[in-house]
């Protein structure tokens, strides 16, 4: 089966500062892949390159076979994007934002969205700007799930969330993805959240990939350690 995401010989510099060089990885369909790394190792850089918001110094990325800086609208329809901090159109209400997004996605699942919104217990006319971080993350999650996309790209999905909302987010996402066989590519600072969520892990260090393997085999290689411990072991303590 053709990989959903392919990155080849990816190299990027910010000015004279090297982020990474000759990065190569693939993501197969139906997998939940977590991209881990310390601050500044290039996680958000990779997401930006994948989504066409950054031109790499050299190398290329393809999503569903298309060059990442030239993704067609039809392919973008198959990709759900979550920006770090659950950034959304905060001047809209939950009903306005649903009306807006649903017009772009023919496979829009209204029930998936409003099912999650019921748990929010906010008025339909309340603006997103007046919600807490946790409530905003639920709105973002609802929008992503309703899009019924084939690929979900989540950049630092746990940013600003308390443990309760992080757990809610992870559980909802896992159930949804496993039931529908979606592919997920996500980054997060909080590694313990990923332990029960991801199938595969890519751990980046400054300039390169340290590890790309299934979470299960990684845990077997480091018995008795949590994913967080393994991460620190591999990347070294600060």
């Amino acid at each position, binding site marked *: 089966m053709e990989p959903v995401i392919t990155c080849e010989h990816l190299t990027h510099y*910010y000015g004279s500062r090297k982020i990474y060089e000759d990065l190569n990885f693939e993501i197969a369909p139906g997998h939940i892949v977590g991209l881990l790394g310390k601050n500044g190792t290039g996680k958000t850089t990779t997401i*930006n390159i994948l*989504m*066409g*918001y*950054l*031109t790499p110094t050299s190398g290329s990325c393809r999503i569903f076979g298309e060059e990442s*800086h030239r993704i067609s*609208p*039809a392919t*973008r*329809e198959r*990709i759900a*994007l979550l*920006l770090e*901090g659950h*950034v*959304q*159109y*905060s*001047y*809209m209400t939950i009903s*306005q934002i649903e*009306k*807006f997004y649903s*017009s*772009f*996605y023919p496979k829009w699942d209204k029930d998936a969205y409003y099912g999650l919104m019921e748990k929010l217990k906010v008025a339909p006319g309340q603006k997103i700007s007046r919600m807490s971080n946790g409530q905003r993350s639920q709105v973002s999650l609802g929008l992503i799930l309703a899009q019924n996309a084939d690929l979900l790209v989540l950049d630092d999905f746990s940013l600003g969330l308390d443990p309760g909302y992080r757990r809610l987010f992870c559980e909802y996402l896992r159930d949804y993805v496993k039931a529908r066989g979606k592919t997920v590519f996500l980054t997060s600072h909080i590694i313990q959240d990923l332990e029960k969520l991801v199938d595969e892990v890519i751990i980046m260090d400054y300039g390169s990939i340290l590890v790309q393997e299934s979470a299960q085999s990684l845990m077997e290689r480091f018995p008795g350690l949590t994913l967080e411990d393994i991460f620190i072991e591999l990347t070294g303590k600060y």
Partner: protein
Amino acid sequence: MGKMILYKEWLKTKGFIFGALGALVLLVFYCLLSIVKTAQLNGTETLWVLILQRDYVLVETLKYFPVALGALLAVVQYLPEISRKRLKLTLHLPYPQKKTVFAMYGYGLIVLLAFFAFISIVILIVFRHFVAGELVTRIFATVAVWFLAGIAAYLWGAAICLEPTWKMRAVLIGLLAALLLLLFISSTPEAYNRILVGLFIYVLCGQLLVFNSILRFKEGLQD
């Protein structure tokens, strides 16, 4: 789908639009009150004399409204897009990106044109009552330059807001300042008649700058 882009822009800017409309109504009311009072106290012929001999156009109160409207509309419309890089969400929509961008600034231009149409209708209705058509034409020819300034402030303002680097923003701000200086360098009515078409084309070329800023945003350029 294009209509939903307009819907999004409307949700973002409707508060500002209503506020600006209120301000415009007050300005127009004040302007018309001055004209009517002048006509009542000094005779309608005074209006003819003011236009013909003093180079007034009688709507000087509105001179800077279009440029302020254009600049503020650009800020209200595009600053939220740049704040926390929400523009990424807009560009990620499954709709051709050029059409998305065109819809966004097209909306702004439509809003501006609606305001300018309102001003034009008021001028036409009120002044046709007081002075000959040739003098109304003079007023329109003068006001057209102010409208151009409003469009320039909007398009250039959009490009400035969307531009990711401060270096290029400074260049765009310098160019906009020079363009506005040119558009207000003379207060003589109809002084711009000979270059109005050229100015109009140049101002509309500001669309290229909007696209350029977005392309630079997509390249990930930063300070």
